[in-house]
């Protein structure tokens, strides 16, 4: 089996990287090597050809047939959003938003894609605009994401001077906060308000920005749309699996080793992705990861105790099963997880899951927009209960209370922020049941409550 993976953090010239029908090479990340930086417009068009004129109805069917699901975390069918906007477009101003905020602290896939293949993302935004009936596109990113902003500024300038027929592109740099990446928060900020999620009574695609239809898509989702428009649904869906088609970008967080972005084209296991990432960062002058053999993580490395899948508000899965766990929507569903934003963060056996979960929970609590009571107070209570476990001041009874508390917070926010945090903590209680019990009975932490080097950025103060 060819592992169609492509580490991008490494300079690699894999030759022509042929990009054609049936080729099981990289797709989104095909083309020039990572160290070459953003692919210029000329090279992009020479490699992929011009974006074909799409016949709207036909192409909407094509997108629906492809099964493309959003890559921003929710996995919502892409065809439905543009169709909703189109249906609501009469007499309205439709806007397409490229969500390039990537507010997940350990995720790198969107900024890698935007920095290396800005024209693929812009092509996709242009296609989405044509489908939804939008004349303008806003690229939305966090302040401080300079590489992303720079890549888009240049790319848009290139397109303008080459005379491509494009929608009008705007760049909006919003506050660098976790929930600011949520779709309604993005729409609120773009409409001049705070980048806080809104309680919606209608889908954003029907009535978003100041009541106008707003299609918010993750940058990767749009890049897929650009390939779909060129090569069609059957080519596109030949990657992935029948129920979760298409390739997918994942970020393997390597703690001190940094992160590796891989494009997964064929169904592979979570374990083999971890191995590839480890090998890619450790060795491989040619940049292609060489797995060290089944089950190995390189000599002397402690085994993986658990993997946090899908983001900080994703789910922990037991490390014991990752060697056989397929990194697909269906495979992950077997263990209650989902691809989410594509993050895989392994926690090695010499780190403490309890202390890690407590830190993540405290960080997520601090990222509440502070609007909804159960989110503001509930997540803080959850973090406190976990911190008591770490401090050795908890009890089995307190753990049972924590479980009840989680049930009270779930579904009680205007956005899904608290739900994700609850899911992460619940999966932690399941996967780390033995460690939780040991901490609850005030035994000493077997690994000394060491925590992995996962980024927990200080949020920007401003909301505007």
């Amino acid at each position, binding site marked *: 089996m060819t592992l169609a993976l492509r580490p991008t953090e490494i300079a690699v010239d894999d030759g022509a990287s042929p990009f054609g029908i049936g080729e099981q090479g990289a797709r989104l990340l095909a083309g020039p090597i990572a160290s070459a930086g953003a692919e210029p417009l000329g090279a992009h068009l020479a490699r992929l050809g011009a974006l074909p004129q799409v016949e709207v109805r036909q192409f909407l069917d094509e997108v629906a047939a492809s099964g493309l699901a959003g890559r921003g975390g*929710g*996995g*919502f069918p892409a065809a*439905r*959003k543009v169709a*909703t906007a189109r249906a609501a477009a009469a007499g309205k101003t439709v806007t397409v938003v490229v969500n390039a905020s990537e507010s997940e602290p350990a995720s790198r896939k969107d900024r890698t894609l935007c920095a290396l293949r800005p024209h693929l993302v812009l092509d996709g935004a242009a296609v989405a605009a044509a489908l939804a009936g939008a004349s303008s596109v806003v690229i939305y990113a966090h302040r401080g994401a300079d590489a992303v902003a720079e890549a888009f500024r240049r790319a848009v300038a290139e397109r303008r001077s080459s005379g491509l027929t494009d929608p009008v592109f705007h760049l909006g740099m919003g506050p660098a906060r976790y929930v600011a990446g949520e*779709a*309604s928060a993005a729409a609120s900020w773009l409409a001049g308000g705070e980048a*806080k*999620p*809104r*309680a*919606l*009574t*209608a*889908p*954003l*695609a*029907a009535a978003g920005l100041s009541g106008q239809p707003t299609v918010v898509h993750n940058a990767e989702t749009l890049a897929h749309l650009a390939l779909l428009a060129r090569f069609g649904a059957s080519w596109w869906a030949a990657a992935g699996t029948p129920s979760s088609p298409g390739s997918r970008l994942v970020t393997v967080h390597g703690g001190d080793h940094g992160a590796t972005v891989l494009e997964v084209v064929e169904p592979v296991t979570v374990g083999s992705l971890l191995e590839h990432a480890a090998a890619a960062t450790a060795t491989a002058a040619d940049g292609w990861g060489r797995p060290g053999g089944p089950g190995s993580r390189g000599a002397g490395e402690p085994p993986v105790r658990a993997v946090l899948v899908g983001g900080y508000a994703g789910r922990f899965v037991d490390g014991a099963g990752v060697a056989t766990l397929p990194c697909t929507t269906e495979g992950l569903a077997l263990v209650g997880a989902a691809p989410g934003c594509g993050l895989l963060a392994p926690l090695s056996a010499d780190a403490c899951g309890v202390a890690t979960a407590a830190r993540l929970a405290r960080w997520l609590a601090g990222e509440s*927009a502070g*609007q*909804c*009571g*159960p*989110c503001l*107070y*509930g997540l803080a209570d959850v973090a406190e209960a976990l911190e008591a476990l770490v401090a050795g001041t908890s009890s089995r009874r307190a753990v049972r209370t924590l479980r009840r*508390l989680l049930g*009270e917070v779930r579904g*009680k*926010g*205007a956005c*899904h922020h608290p739900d994700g945090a609850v899911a992460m903590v619940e999966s932690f209680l399941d996967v780390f049941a033995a460690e939780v019990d040991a901490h609850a009975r005030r035994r000493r932490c077997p690994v000394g409550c060491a925590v992995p080097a996962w980024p927990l950025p200080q949020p920007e103060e401003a909301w505007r």
Partner: protein
Amino acid sequence: MTGRLRVDRTRCAGHGICAFIAPGALDLDAWGFPEVVATELSGDDLRRARRAAAACPRGALTVSDVVSTVQPLRAPWEP
């Protein structure tokens, strides 16, 4: 005549007045914030819910008439 009660949690400040005015429609959670316990209201409960909505200092409560039994549109961000 039936009505539907909705809480905009981004506006609610958790005073809890509403749950005292309309106990048949709202309950308070562990942090003192209202939860809708009965969405479709009629008779006395509906009257109380309207009074609670009017009393809410944050305008967080809305009572809308149930005009048909058509399922509400599922929002795209909902799984």
